Protein backbone atom coordinates (compact mmCIF):
# COMPACT_ATOMS: atom_id res chain seq x y z
CA UNK A 1 0.00 0.00 0.00
CA UNK A 2 1.84 3.13 -1.02
CA UNK A 3 0.19 5.42 1.48
CA UNK A 4 2.31 8.10 3.05
CA UNK A 5 1.66 8.34 6.76
CA UNK A 6 3.04 11.38 8.58
CA UNK A 7 2.86 11.81 12.33
CA UNK A 8 3.83 15.10 13.94
CA UNK A 9 3.81 15.58 17.70
CA UNK A 10 4.63 18.30 20.16
CA UNK A 11 6.50 17.02 23.16
CA UNK A 12 9.09 18.25 25.60
CA UNK A 13 11.00 14.99 25.37
CA UNK A 14 12.43 13.57 22.17
CA UNK A 15 12.38 10.05 23.59
CA UNK A 16 8.74 10.07 24.61
CA UNK A 17 7.87 11.64 21.26
CA UNK A 18 9.68 8.86 19.39
CA UNK A 19 8.14 6.16 21.52
CA UNK A 20 4.65 7.56 21.04
CA UNK A 21 5.14 7.90 17.30
CA UNK A 22 6.46 4.35 16.97
CA UNK A 23 3.49 3.02 18.91
CA UNK A 24 1.10 4.98 16.70
CA UNK A 25 2.75 3.61 13.55
CA UNK A 26 2.40 0.08 14.92
CA UNK A 27 -1.28 0.70 15.55
CA UNK A 28 -1.73 1.81 11.94
CA UNK A 29 0.14 -1.25 10.69
CA UNK A 30 -2.05 -3.48 12.83
CA UNK A 31 -5.18 -1.94 11.32
CA UNK A 32 -3.78 -2.31 7.83
CA UNK A 33 -3.37 -6.04 8.41
CA UNK A 34 -7.01 -6.28 9.44
CA UNK A 35 -8.48 -4.19 6.64
CA UNK A 36 -6.23 -4.78 3.62
CA UNK A 37 -8.40 -5.76 0.64
CA UNK A 38 -5.42 -7.16 -1.23
CA UNK A 39 -4.08 -9.31 1.58
CA UNK A 40 -5.63 -12.79 1.71
CA UNK A 41 -5.08 -12.98 5.49
CA UNK A 42 -6.92 -9.81 6.44
CA UNK A 43 -10.21 -10.04 8.30
CA UNK A 44 -11.89 -8.22 5.44
CA UNK A 45 -10.67 -10.83 2.96
CA UNK A 46 -12.00 -13.50 5.29
CA UNK A 47 -15.44 -11.92 5.28
CA UNK A 48 -15.29 -11.56 1.49
CA UNK A 49 -14.26 -15.16 1.00
CA UNK A 50 -17.22 -16.29 3.10
CA UNK A 51 -19.76 -14.09 1.38
CA UNK A 52 -22.99 -15.99 0.99
CA UNK A 53 -21.55 -18.83 3.04
CA UNK A 54 -21.15 -18.01 6.70
CA UNK A 55 -20.62 -15.26 9.21
CA UNK A 56 -17.05 -14.59 10.29
CA UNK A 57 -15.74 -13.80 13.75
CA UNK A 58 -13.86 -10.48 13.69
CA UNK A 59 -11.96 -8.26 16.09
CA UNK A 60 -13.35 -5.18 17.77
CA UNK A 61 -11.75 -2.76 15.30
CA UNK A 62 -13.28 -4.51 12.31
CA UNK A 63 -16.70 -4.54 13.96
CA UNK A 64 -16.27 -0.89 14.78
CA UNK A 65 -15.31 0.22 11.28
CA UNK A 66 -18.06 -1.84 9.65
CA UNK A 67 -20.58 -0.36 12.05
CA UNK A 68 -19.44 3.14 11.16
CA UNK A 69 -19.47 2.31 7.44
CA UNK A 70 -23.09 1.16 7.67
CA UNK A 71 -24.00 4.31 9.58
CA UNK A 72 -22.55 6.50 6.86
CA UNK A 73 -24.36 4.43 4.22
CA UNK A 74 -27.68 5.15 5.93
CA UNK A 75 -26.98 8.86 6.33
CA UNK A 76 -25.87 9.27 2.71
CA UNK A 77 -28.81 7.28 1.31
CA UNK A 78 -26.45 4.59 0.15
CA UNK A 79 -24.08 6.92 -1.71
CA UNK A 80 -21.27 5.63 0.46
CA UNK A 81 -21.31 1.86 0.26
CA UNK A 82 -18.44 -0.27 1.52
CA UNK A 83 -19.69 -3.22 -0.54
CA UNK A 84 -18.60 -1.41 -3.72
CA UNK A 85 -15.85 -4.04 -4.01
CA UNK A 86 -17.57 -6.15 -6.70
CA UNK A 87 -17.66 -3.19 -9.09
CA UNK A 88 -14.51 -1.29 -8.24
CA UNK A 89 -12.38 -4.36 -8.93
CA UNK A 90 -13.60 -4.24 -12.54
CA UNK A 91 -11.58 -1.06 -12.97
CA UNK A 92 -7.77 -1.14 -13.16
CA UNK A 93 -6.39 2.27 -12.23
CA UNK A 94 -2.80 1.26 -12.83
CA UNK A 95 -3.28 -0.27 -16.25
CA UNK A 96 -5.95 2.34 -17.02
CA UNK A 97 -8.64 -0.15 -17.96
CA UNK A 98 -12.34 0.58 -17.63
CA UNK A 99 -14.88 -2.25 -17.76
CA UNK A 100 -17.57 -2.97 -20.34
CA UNK A 101 -21.06 -1.74 -19.56
CA UNK A 102 -22.27 -5.34 -19.42
CA UNK A 103 -19.73 -6.30 -16.73
CA UNK A 104 -20.84 -3.38 -14.60
CA UNK A 105 -24.52 -4.23 -15.01
CA UNK A 106 -23.82 -7.81 -14.06
CA UNK A 107 -22.07 -6.91 -10.81
CA UNK A 108 -24.28 -4.03 -9.77
CA UNK A 109 -26.61 -6.37 -7.85
CA UNK A 110 -23.61 -7.34 -5.70
CA UNK A 111 -23.35 -3.82 -4.33
CA UNK A 112 -25.74 -3.19 -1.45
CA UNK A 113 -24.80 -2.24 2.08
CA UNK A 114 -28.06 -3.74 3.33
CA UNK A 115 -26.65 -7.20 2.69
CA UNK A 116 -23.86 -6.59 5.18
CA UNK A 117 -24.83 -7.44 8.72
CA UNK A 118 -22.86 -7.32 11.93
CA UNK A 119 -23.62 -8.91 15.26
CA UNK A 120 -22.09 -7.05 18.18
CA UNK A 121 -22.85 -9.81 20.67
CA UNK A 122 -21.23 -12.57 18.67
CA UNK A 123 -18.56 -10.28 17.21
CA UNK A 124 -19.31 -11.47 13.72
CA UNK A 125 -19.88 -9.97 10.30
CA UNK A 126 -21.72 -11.52 7.37
CA UNK A 127 -22.07 -10.73 3.69
CA UNK A 128 -25.35 -12.26 2.54
CA UNK A 129 -24.72 -12.71 -1.19
CA UNK A 130 -22.02 -14.77 -2.82
CA UNK A 131 -19.65 -12.65 -4.89
CA UNK A 132 -20.00 -9.55 -2.75
CA UNK A 133 -16.86 -7.74 -1.62
CA UNK A 134 -16.21 -5.22 1.11
CA UNK A 135 -13.63 -2.56 0.24
CA UNK A 136 -12.83 -0.25 3.13
CA UNK A 137 -10.69 2.07 1.01
CA UNK A 138 -13.15 4.91 1.57
CA UNK A 139 -13.07 4.81 5.36
CA UNK A 140 -9.99 2.95 6.62
CA UNK A 141 -7.55 5.85 6.39
CA UNK A 142 -9.73 8.16 8.48
CA UNK A 143 -10.33 5.36 10.96
CA UNK A 144 -6.59 4.75 11.17
CA UNK A 145 -5.98 8.43 11.83
CA UNK A 146 -8.49 8.34 14.71
CA UNK A 147 -6.83 5.32 16.28
CA UNK A 148 -3.38 6.77 15.81
CA UNK A 149 -4.41 9.94 17.62
CA UNK A 150 -5.90 7.92 20.49
CA UNK A 151 -2.65 5.99 20.71
CA UNK A 152 -0.66 9.22 20.87
CA UNK A 153 -2.94 10.58 23.60
CA UNK A 154 -2.56 7.35 25.57
CA UNK A 155 1.19 7.92 25.37
CA UNK A 156 0.76 11.32 27.00
CA UNK A 157 1.04 13.44 23.87
CA UNK A 158 -1.21 16.49 24.10
CA UNK A 159 -0.72 18.02 20.69
CA UNK A 160 -0.11 16.54 17.31
CA UNK A 161 -1.15 15.84 13.75
CA UNK A 162 -1.66 12.52 12.01
CA UNK A 163 -1.97 12.39 8.24
CA UNK A 164 -2.80 9.09 6.55
CA UNK A 165 -2.44 9.89 2.85
CA UNK A 166 -4.27 13.18 3.21
CA UNK A 167 -6.84 12.06 5.80
CA UNK A 168 -5.83 14.25 8.69
CA UNK A 169 -6.63 14.50 12.37
CA UNK A 170 -5.23 17.33 14.45
CA UNK A 171 -5.38 17.74 18.21
CA UNK A 172 -4.07 20.31 20.63
CA UNK A 173 -2.22 23.48 19.71
CA UNK A 174 1.18 24.08 18.20
CA UNK A 175 4.03 25.32 20.40
CA UNK A 176 3.27 28.92 19.39
CA UNK A 177 -0.29 28.49 20.70
CA UNK A 178 -1.81 28.49 17.24
CA UNK A 179 -4.03 25.73 15.81
CA UNK A 180 -2.74 23.35 13.14
CA UNK A 181 -2.99 24.79 9.67
CA UNK A 182 -4.17 22.46 6.93
CA UNK A 183 -4.03 23.12 3.21
CA UNK A 184 -6.80 21.90 0.90
CA UNK A 185 -5.50 20.79 -2.44
CA UNK A 186 -6.65 22.52 -5.58
CA UNK A 187 -8.31 19.76 -7.63
CA UNK A 188 -7.12 21.31 -10.90
CA UNK A 189 -3.68 22.45 -9.76
CA UNK A 190 -1.19 22.84 -12.60
CA UNK A 191 2.00 23.00 -10.59
CA UNK A 192 3.49 23.83 -7.24
CA UNK A 193 2.33 27.44 -7.38
CA UNK A 194 -1.38 26.79 -7.25
CA UNK A 195 -1.45 23.39 -5.54
CA UNK A 196 -3.31 24.67 -2.45
CA UNK A 197 -6.66 26.38 -2.93
CA UNK A 198 -7.53 27.10 0.70
CA UNK A 199 -6.20 26.78 4.23
CA UNK A 200 -8.14 25.95 7.35
CA UNK A 201 -7.18 25.98 11.02
CA UNK A 202 -8.14 22.90 13.02
CA UNK A 203 -8.27 22.18 16.73
CA UNK A 204 -9.34 18.68 17.76
CA UNK A 205 -10.90 18.04 14.39
CA UNK A 206 -10.40 15.78 11.44
CA UNK A 207 -10.49 16.60 7.74
CA UNK A 208 -10.61 14.35 4.67
CA UNK A 209 -10.82 15.11 1.00
CA UNK A 210 -12.12 12.99 -1.87
CA UNK A 211 -11.12 14.10 -5.33
CA UNK A 212 -11.58 12.95 -8.90
CA UNK A 213 -7.86 13.40 -9.52
CA UNK A 214 -6.50 10.94 -6.94
CA UNK A 215 -6.74 7.64 -8.77
CA UNK A 216 -7.92 8.43 -12.23
CA UNK A 217 -7.23 7.97 -15.90
CA UNK A 218 -8.70 9.31 -19.09
CA UNK A 219 -9.96 6.95 -21.82
CA UNK A 220 -11.59 8.31 -24.98
CA UNK A 221 -11.86 11.76 -23.46
CA UNK A 222 -13.77 10.56 -20.40
CA UNK A 223 -12.27 10.78 -16.91
CA UNK A 224 -12.53 7.59 -14.88
CA UNK A 225 -11.85 8.00 -11.16
CA UNK A 226 -12.29 5.74 -8.16
CA UNK A 227 -15.36 7.41 -6.56
CA UNK A 228 -18.01 5.18 -8.07
CA UNK A 229 -21.74 5.71 -7.72
CA UNK A 230 -22.98 2.46 -6.16
CA UNK A 231 -26.24 2.70 -8.07
CA UNK A 232 -24.72 3.01 -11.55
CA UNK A 233 -21.23 1.57 -11.15
CA UNK A 234 -19.75 4.57 -12.95
CA UNK A 235 -17.61 7.38 -11.57
CA UNK A 236 -19.79 10.03 -9.95
CA UNK A 237 -20.03 13.32 -11.78
CA UNK A 238 -20.89 16.65 -10.24
CA UNK A 239 -17.84 17.33 -8.08
CA UNK A 240 -14.12 17.77 -8.51
CA UNK A 241 -13.33 17.51 -4.82
CA UNK A 242 -15.08 17.33 -1.46
CA UNK A 243 -13.51 18.14 1.92
CA UNK A 244 -15.32 17.31 5.17
CA UNK A 245 -14.51 18.52 8.66
CA UNK A 246 -15.78 16.99 11.88
CA UNK A 247 -14.48 15.33 15.00
CA UNK A 248 -14.05 11.78 13.75
CA UNK A 249 -11.67 10.86 10.95
CA UNK A 250 -13.63 7.75 10.03
CA UNK A 251 -16.60 9.99 9.28
CA UNK A 252 -14.66 12.67 7.43
CA UNK A 253 -13.21 9.94 5.23
CA UNK A 254 -16.44 8.05 4.53
CA UNK A 255 -18.66 11.13 4.23
CA UNK A 256 -16.19 12.74 1.85
CA UNK A 257 -16.73 9.77 -0.47
CA UNK A 258 -20.49 9.72 0.07
CA UNK A 259 -21.01 13.47 -0.35
CA UNK A 260 -18.87 13.45 -3.50
CA UNK A 261 -21.28 10.93 -4.98
CA UNK A 262 -24.37 12.80 -3.78
CA UNK A 263 -23.24 15.93 -5.59
CA UNK A 264 -22.96 19.57 -4.48
CA UNK A 265 -26.56 20.50 -3.62
CA UNK A 266 -27.59 17.30 -1.89
CA UNK A 267 -24.15 17.15 -0.35
CA UNK A 268 -24.34 20.50 1.39
CA UNK A 269 -27.84 19.69 2.66
CA UNK A 270 -26.64 16.38 4.10
CA UNK A 271 -23.67 18.07 5.75
CA UNK A 272 -25.92 20.65 7.37
CA UNK A 273 -28.19 17.88 8.63
CA UNK A 274 -25.21 16.06 10.14
CA UNK A 275 -23.78 19.25 11.60
CA UNK A 276 -20.50 18.81 9.72
CA UNK A 277 -18.51 21.43 7.86
CA UNK A 278 -17.42 20.99 4.29
CA UNK A 279 -15.97 22.52 1.15
CA UNK A 280 -17.18 21.23 -2.21
CA UNK A 281 -15.69 22.12 -5.57
CA UNK A 282 -18.27 21.22 -8.18
CA UNK A 283 -17.56 19.99 -11.70
CA UNK A 284 -17.57 23.57 -13.02
CA UNK A 285 -14.97 24.61 -10.46
CA UNK A 286 -17.42 26.56 -8.34
CA UNK A 287 -16.91 26.33 -4.57
CA UNK A 288 -19.78 25.51 -2.18
CA UNK A 289 -19.36 25.65 1.61
CA UNK A 290 -21.40 24.95 4.70
CA UNK A 291 -22.47 28.21 6.38
CA UNK A 292 -20.37 28.03 9.58
CA UNK A 293 -17.12 27.37 7.86
CA UNK A 294 -16.89 30.69 6.09
CA UNK A 295 -15.01 32.30 8.93
CA UNK A 296 -12.47 29.52 9.38
CA UNK A 297 -11.42 28.88 5.81
CA UNK A 298 -9.10 31.15 3.90
CA UNK A 299 -9.30 30.82 0.13
CA UNK A 300 -6.23 31.58 -1.91
CA UNK A 301 -8.05 33.19 -4.79
CA UNK A 302 -11.69 33.75 -5.69
CA UNK A 303 -13.13 30.77 -7.52
Amino acid sequence: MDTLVTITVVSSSKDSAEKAIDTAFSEIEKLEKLFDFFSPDSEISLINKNAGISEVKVSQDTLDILDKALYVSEKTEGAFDATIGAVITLYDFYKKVNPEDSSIKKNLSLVNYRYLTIDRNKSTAFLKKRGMYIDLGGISKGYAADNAVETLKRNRIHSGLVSVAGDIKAFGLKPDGKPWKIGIRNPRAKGQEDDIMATIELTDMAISTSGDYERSFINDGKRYHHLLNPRTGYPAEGCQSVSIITKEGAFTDAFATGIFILGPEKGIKTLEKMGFDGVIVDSQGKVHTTPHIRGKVEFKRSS
Partner: protein
Amino acid sequence: MNLKGLLNSTTIADRILLFILILLSLSGIFFIKEVLPKGQIVRIEINGHPVYLLPIEKDRIVSVNGSEGNTIVEIKNHKVRITESPCDNKLCIQQGWIEKGSIVCLPNRVVVIIGTPEDESNKRVDAITG
Protein backbone atom coordinates in the same frame (compact mmCIF):
# COMPACT_ATOMS: atom_id res chain seq x y z
CA MET B 1 48.04 2.80 -34.68
CA ASN B 2 50.82 4.93 -33.34
CA LEU B 3 50.87 8.25 -31.58
CA LYS B 4 52.01 10.11 -34.70
CA GLY B 5 49.09 8.67 -36.59
CA LEU B 6 46.80 9.87 -33.84
CA LEU B 7 48.22 13.37 -33.91
CA ASN B 8 47.71 13.47 -37.66
CA SER B 9 44.02 12.81 -37.21
CA THR B 10 43.54 15.84 -35.02
CA THR B 11 43.75 19.56 -35.60
CA ILE B 12 44.87 22.03 -33.00
CA ALA B 13 41.31 23.07 -32.40
CA ASP B 14 40.40 19.43 -31.81
CA ARG B 15 43.01 19.07 -29.12
CA ILE B 16 42.08 22.32 -27.40
CA LEU B 17 38.43 21.32 -27.41
CA LEU B 18 39.25 17.92 -25.95
CA PHE B 19 41.34 19.47 -23.23
CA ILE B 20 38.63 21.99 -22.28
CA LEU B 21 35.89 19.37 -22.22
CA ILE B 22 37.87 17.00 -20.03
CA LEU B 23 38.82 19.83 -17.70
CA LEU B 24 35.28 21.16 -17.38
CA SER B 25 33.60 17.80 -16.91
CA LEU B 26 36.11 16.55 -14.34
CA SER B 27 35.92 19.75 -12.32
CA GLY B 28 32.13 19.59 -12.66
CA ILE B 29 32.18 16.15 -11.10
CA PHE B 30 34.12 17.30 -8.07
CA PHE B 31 32.37 20.63 -7.70
CA ILE B 32 28.84 19.26 -7.71
CA LYS B 33 29.67 16.69 -5.06
CA GLU B 34 30.96 19.39 -2.73
CA VAL B 35 28.22 21.91 -3.31
CA LEU B 36 25.33 19.61 -2.43
CA PRO B 37 24.07 20.24 1.10
CA LYS B 38 24.29 17.60 3.78
CA GLY B 39 20.74 16.72 4.62
CA GLN B 40 18.81 15.46 7.60
CA ILE B 41 15.83 13.86 5.92
CA VAL B 42 16.01 10.73 3.80
CA ARG B 43 13.21 10.82 1.28
CA ILE B 44 12.33 7.63 -0.56
CA GLU B 45 10.10 7.99 -3.59
CA ILE B 46 8.44 5.42 -5.80
CA ASN B 47 7.36 6.61 -9.23
CA GLY B 48 7.82 10.16 -8.08
CA HIS B 49 5.54 9.77 -5.03
CA PRO B 50 7.11 10.00 -1.58
CA VAL B 51 6.60 6.89 0.53
CA TYR B 52 9.06 7.48 3.33
CA LEU B 53 10.40 10.57 5.03
CA LEU B 54 12.94 9.41 7.57
CA PRO B 55 15.39 11.24 9.81
CA ILE B 56 19.00 10.41 8.93
CA GLU B 57 19.91 10.25 12.61
CA LYS B 58 18.12 6.99 13.26
CA ASP B 59 19.75 3.80 11.95
CA ARG B 60 17.27 1.58 10.22
CA ILE B 61 16.60 -0.67 7.25
CA VAL B 62 13.49 -0.25 5.11
CA SER B 63 12.14 -2.19 2.19
CA VAL B 64 10.19 -0.40 -0.52
CA ASN B 65 8.12 -2.01 -3.21
CA GLY B 66 8.95 -0.67 -6.64
CA SER B 67 7.62 -1.67 -10.03
CA GLU B 68 10.01 -4.62 -10.34
CA GLY B 69 10.27 -5.75 -6.75
CA ASN B 70 11.71 -4.78 -3.39
CA THR B 71 14.52 -2.31 -2.97
CA ILE B 72 16.17 -2.31 0.43
CA VAL B 73 17.49 0.97 1.79
CA GLU B 74 19.79 1.16 4.81
CA ILE B 75 20.42 4.20 6.98
CA LYS B 76 23.44 3.94 9.26
CA ASN B 77 25.82 6.43 10.86
CA HIS B 78 24.19 9.35 9.07
CA LYS B 79 24.72 7.72 5.68
CA VAL B 80 22.36 5.99 3.27
CA ARG B 81 22.80 3.22 0.77
CA ILE B 82 20.78 0.74 -1.24
CA THR B 83 21.71 -2.80 -0.25
CA GLU B 84 19.43 -4.79 -2.56
CA SER B 85 17.43 -4.08 -5.66
CA PRO B 86 15.81 -6.15 -8.40
CA CYS B 87 17.38 -4.16 -11.26
CA ASP B 88 19.76 -5.70 -13.82
CA ASN B 89 22.69 -3.34 -13.57
CA LYS B 90 22.73 -2.91 -9.76
CA LEU B 91 24.08 0.59 -10.38
CA CYS B 92 22.19 1.89 -7.39
CA ILE B 93 23.96 -0.55 -5.08
CA GLN B 94 27.35 0.24 -6.61
CA GLN B 95 26.93 3.88 -5.56
CA GLY B 96 27.59 2.79 -1.99
CA TRP B 97 27.03 5.12 0.96
CA ILE B 98 26.00 8.70 0.36
CA GLU B 99 25.83 11.61 2.79
CA LYS B 100 24.28 14.02 0.36
CA GLY B 101 22.64 13.98 -3.04
CA SER B 102 20.63 11.03 -4.24
CA ILE B 103 20.65 7.46 -5.52
CA VAL B 104 18.33 6.43 -8.30
CA CYS B 105 17.22 2.94 -9.28
CA LEU B 106 15.62 3.72 -12.61
CA PRO B 107 14.34 0.22 -13.47
CA ASN B 108 12.52 -0.09 -10.15
CA ARG B 109 11.46 3.59 -10.20
CA VAL B 110 12.94 4.15 -6.74
CA VAL B 111 14.67 7.38 -5.78
CA VAL B 112 16.46 8.00 -2.47
CA ILE B 113 17.15 11.68 -1.82
CA ILE B 114 18.88 13.31 1.12
CA GLY B 115 17.27 16.63 1.78
CA THR B 116 16.70 19.25 4.39
CA PRO B 117 13.49 19.74 6.36
CA GLU B 118 12.89 23.02 4.55
CA ASP B 119 12.26 21.33 1.23
CA GLU B 120 10.09 18.71 2.85
CA SER B 121 7.71 20.86 4.78
CA ASN B 122 5.43 23.26 3.03
CA LYS B 123 6.19 26.55 4.71
CA ARG B 124 2.62 27.75 4.68
CA VAL B 125 0.77 24.74 6.07
CA ASP B 126 1.41 21.85 8.46
CA ALA B 127 -0.26 19.24 6.26
CA ILE B 128 -2.18 18.98 3.03
CA THR B 129 -5.45 17.16 2.50
CA GLY B 130 -6.62 16.04 -0.92
